[in-house]
């Protein structure tokens, strides 16, 4: 379903998605390492749980498995996600 592929920063809050591609070159090396260590990588199932303060879009809080990970929109923009159909069940 190519029409449901978007960058992570466009993913609406609460919708489940899977990361299908990451433009690692767009990220600083340490940040890429840290994201992978936190389980944010190709294949990860996640959802956006919170975003921004005072109406801004930065930063984002992701639910990855049983963890919450904060990152910036700039990082999220480097990741392609695809929507998962059953929106209620969250990761494993």
């Amino acid at each position, binding site marked *: 379903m190519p029409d449901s592929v978007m960058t992570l920063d466009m993913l609406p809050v609460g919708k489940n998605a899977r990361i299908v591609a990451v433009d690692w070159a767009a*990220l*600083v090396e*340490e*940040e890429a*390492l*840290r*994201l*992978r*260590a*936190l*389980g944010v*990588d190709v294949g990860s199932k996640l959802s956006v*749980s*919170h*975003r*921004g*303060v*005072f*109406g*801004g879009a*930065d*930063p984002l*809080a992701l*639910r*990855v*498995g*049983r*963890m*919450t*990970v*904060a*990152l*910036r929109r*700039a*990082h999220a923009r480097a990741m392609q996600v695809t929507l998962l159909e059953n929106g209620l*069940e969250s990761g*494993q």
Partner: protein
Amino acid sequence: MSRWHKAALVGNPNAGKSALFNALTGARQKIANYPGVTVERRGGRMILPNGAPIELTDLPGSYGLQATSPDEEVTRKVILGELAGEPAPDVLVIVLDASNLEQHLVFAQEVIALGKPTVVALNMIDLAERDGLVLDPKALSNALGVPVIPTVAVRRRGLTELGEAITQAEGHAGDAPHPRARLDLAERRMEAHAIADGVIISESAKHRLHSRMDDVLLHPWIGPVFLLGLLFVVFQAVFAWAAPLQDGLEGFVGLISDAVKGAMAPGLLRDFLTDGVMAGVGAVVVFLPQIIILFFFILVLEATGYMARAAFLMDRMMAGVGLSGRSFIPLLSSFACAVPGIMATRSITDPKDRLTTILIAPLMTCSARLPVYAVIIAAFIPNRPVGVVGLQGLVLFGLYVFGIVGAMVVALILRRSVTKGAASGFIMEMPKYQLPRLRDLGLGLFQRGWIFLRRAGTIILQVNIVLWLLLNFPQAPKGQDQVDASFAGHIANGLAVALKPIGFNRDIALALIPSMMAREVAVSSLATTYAVAAGDDDTTAHQLSAQLQKHWSLPTALAFLAWFVFAPQCISTIAVTRRETNGWKWPGFMLAYLFALAYVFAGITYWSAVALGF
């Protein structure tokens, strides 16, 4: 045995390692630094069930052996025995968060693959159960090939079993390691997923308390307002709750001083004890309640997991001055003390970010400034209610805000000049919310309070003795002012020439010299100076407030407050900056820019106040 065997706690951040460490070692712990680096080393003695002691180290939390921060570098080197002066641990205790198994197993596999004697503590199993997770520790043990002990550090569950497992593993301490096949990150993650699947017996979709708490606390509008309100409550509490305790301590010091006066014959020795030691050290010790209350809040915010939420909420604002939410935690810690604050910058991965944060950390109003602010505010600002808060509390809050705004402006300028570089990122795990445990809190407060008292008993005492000697010699001929005749008076008179334009008198110049050691020394120095100047007969000699009102004008007092917003008068901060930046360049820069700002802003304050006719 030539030496005690060593065990080390290893694990991801937020696995509950520190709580487990506290539970295993009790109060028998020592906090120091690793040799050659500035990463905090927490070590302690643990008594195994068979009565033998073992040295236990709490290694910094790490996501993998491939280090991305100085903390992780230390963990890697200690585990591999590559850190000079730090023998490799004989037994590794991997601490896993039971409710975050899949994630934490990624690093655990990497450590187990080293083939050293290893035990796994399946920690916080109660929280996992609360979340509706039922786990099978045996299955985990089979999958990993090492013993797995379910533990609840905060309830002391499983500690004996863990001790027994460590004893057993210790028996193999001398064996050569049997390294196993090393998997790469992707393989380890797949394996972790498979293991976690096999270990989780059942998982009910209970609504999780902490995601609901996040809905409120990370709410785009409610969250920041809550944080601001919380910070305001903290600072009001520091001032209001501490007052009765402080009065009590003050009375106690006065009682001792009077008792000494009654028991000893008048003379230099008695003066030395009452004016030099008690007036000086007593003036600082009475601030113990405020420091304890401030640290209480900071420790609670850290232990509950709220600190990371505060970092999330502050990230946008910090990004505005070229920093990230990560800088917020070191900066908030700097409200207690810049030294742990600057040390906490090690978790900031970007070097330019980190340097900027170090340079502005001394602008956060640390607890050592509280004595200075409190004394001046109490003496010069009327205790009038303004709406629901007092004017004194409001002025104190204003000084905090002044420091924060100053820090933000400085950061903005630094990020565009001396620490120019690419914009930094913000990636951070949000730990689960947890109730803080009283024992850990108490231990943390005791350690902080003890450090403060030790400083009062050593550095501050020594400085005061020297100051007292300089103030009393040479002795003035009868009828002349003792301070003017003394060595200290001569030095201060010289310095006072430079400080006169910003409204500082000789007594202030006198207090500023020794308070290079630590800011709170300014209070004790002023107390000592006025006690010496007043002599024995003056009943108000030991009431610093009255003395200040007599000798200082309001503009001078305000300028003095403005000075201390900026002045980097703390030898420990300078020393830790030198250590953290590996040289004298940045502490030198810090000293120069902060003294320049202190001079300018004290001057502006003084002349504005004079012009307004205060």
